[in-house]
């Protein structure tokens, strides 16, 4: 299941493993050869991962094994109690939400959830929420305000589901409502882009006082494939579209859209999920701490100022 550009690395790793096994089984000393190969592996990794193209990062953001919202809930937070339902129509498995503890403090969390297996992915609609999912998220925001707990969102979706059922129940309306609701939180709000930040379906829970992004995550108004299909009339131009869209963590930091990049282990979070999650915990702690000192009014003002400044225009 390695990504295309990871294959030479994976193959070399496999070769080294085989050699080690052989040496052990046969009792021969191949340490020189192995060391040589390991140096080569090191160079290859450095070469590959220090010059990742935007499109390669998009692929890393989608890599199987990359930590999902539930992984974050189970590892970065403790005492997670999942809460279900929108109290109106359904429970949407594409968004997972509930109460948890972070550094001893109660918080409310909601995030997109992709499946960790194919079957689960179908159950979770590939992380593409229906309106019920966003209403569940809004219920969580109500809960956060009700108890004065920080609200933390975890973003990882190709986008809100573009289907008949979703349109019938007001997908556009619920996204607008969720943006508005999150903007009105009287508690600290953090948004973390874990993997894919696909358009309005991501922004609906992205209105944080601070927005964090994992090093290899992306965030854009449209996926590279769809953009390529429309502008280049060829989905295969996704790599080019990804370049044009400037959707990587570094781009977003330069554009002022995110506040902090959470570093990932070399090769991406899927290669060492625990290390990635430890970095994430540190980043959340660092961003949350100053917000805890602000009053509800200061938090509201801060959030408004943050988004009010977004965009680039030329004044006449």
């Amino acid at each position, binding site marked *: 299941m390695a990504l295309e550009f990871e294959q030479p690395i994976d193959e070399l790793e496999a070769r080294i493993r085989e050699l080690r096994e052989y040496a052990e089984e046969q009792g021969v000393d191949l340490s020189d050869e192995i060391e040589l190969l390991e140096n080569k592996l090191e160079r290859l990794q450095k070469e590959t991962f220090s010059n990742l193209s935007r499109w390669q990062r998009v692929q890393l953001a989608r890599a199987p094994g990359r930590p999902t919202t539930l992984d974050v809930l189970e590892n970065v937070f403790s005492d997670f109690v999942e809460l279900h339902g929108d109290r109106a129509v359904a429970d949407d498995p594409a968004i997972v939400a509930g109460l948890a503890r972070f550094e001893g403090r109660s918080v409310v969390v909601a995030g997109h959830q992709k499946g960790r297996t194919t079957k689960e992915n179908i159950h979770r609609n590939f992380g593409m929420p229906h309106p019920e999912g966003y209403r569940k998220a809004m219920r969580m925001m109500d809960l956060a305000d009700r108890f004065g707990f920080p609200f933390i969102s975890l973003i990882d979706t190709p986008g809100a589901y573009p289907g008949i059922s979703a349109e019938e129940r007001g997908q556009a309306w619920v996204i607008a409502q969720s943006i508005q609701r999150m903007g*009105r939180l009287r508690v600290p709000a953090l948004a973390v882009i874990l993997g894919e930040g696909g358009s309005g379906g991501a922004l609906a829970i992205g209105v944080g006082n601070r927005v964090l992004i994992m090093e290899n995550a992306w965030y854009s*108004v449209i996926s590279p494939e769809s953009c390529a299909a429309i502008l280049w009339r060829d989905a295969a131009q996704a790599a080019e579209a990804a370049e044009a869209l400037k*959707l990587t963590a570094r781009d977003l930091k330069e*554009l002022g859209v995110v506040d902090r990049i959470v570093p990932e282990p070399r090769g991406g979070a899927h290669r060492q999920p625990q290390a990635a999650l430890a970095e994430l915990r540190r980043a959340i702690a660092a961003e949350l701490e100053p917000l805890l000192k602000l009053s509800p009014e200061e938090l509201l003002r801060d959030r408004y100022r943050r988004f009010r400044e977004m965009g680039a225009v030329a004044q006449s």
Partner: protein
Amino acid sequence: MALDRLFRRRRTRGGGRDVPELWLKCPACEAQIYKKDLEANLMVCPECGHHLRMSVEQRVAMLVDEGSFEQTTGSVKPADPLSFSDTEPYAERLRRYQEKTGRSDAIYGGTCTIGGVPALLLVMDYAFAGGSMGSAVGEELARGAEQAAAQGRAFVTVAASGGARMQESVLSLMQMAKTTMALDRLWEKRLPYVSILTDPTTGGVTASFAALGDVILAEPGALIGFAGPRVIKQTIRQDLPEGFQRSEFLLQHGMLDQVVPRAELRQRLIQVLSLLHPEGAASGA
């Protein structure tokens, strides 16, 4: 996503320019209509009642009290923050649209009174890049809401948009949050916001400020939704039901307050504004 749809249509239609401009064909019933008649009828087909698109200038004229309008938009010009280029550089496209429409970007409006109620009216221009919302459009909307709040005006928007402007990527996405949050300035002052949806309103515009009117009105037969019909068809791989995503469908599904024929729109707007605006609400004007 709107931008391209417009490009394509323009390209494939191409020849349209050769037809004498005195006559227009109704896209619904195909009747040939004398253009002056159509304009006099607010661009509503006299044969079948189909609501055609109208210019933003005509839209403003039909809604405001005569002589009350003062333009506020135009000073915010779009930029090209990503140096975006696909088959054509974004900067080029902008220039072409600016030439064609005589506008900086896809929005036009200003202060006015509507039935005597002080208002700030902003109208999206579908003729400019499919009414797509980039930083400049978002900035005009946010300023509009802020100015309305500061001056005690009702805020009224007329949406017509294919969605966010792809060429500004995440910055155009951020306009959804910016415009939505700016509406809260009106809340603090108990000033009303009325959103009018026209054909078509989809994507990031529907999914932000336009869906959040205290009262939401739509014109008959307008296409309104989150995803465009083509995207949905690709996703579900089957045909869409008759009337799907049209105003009447949305009314049934609880998303709109009223579907209002264009000829009645000004009157309905006056009724709503005079009930909601503090001046009319207390005095019983």
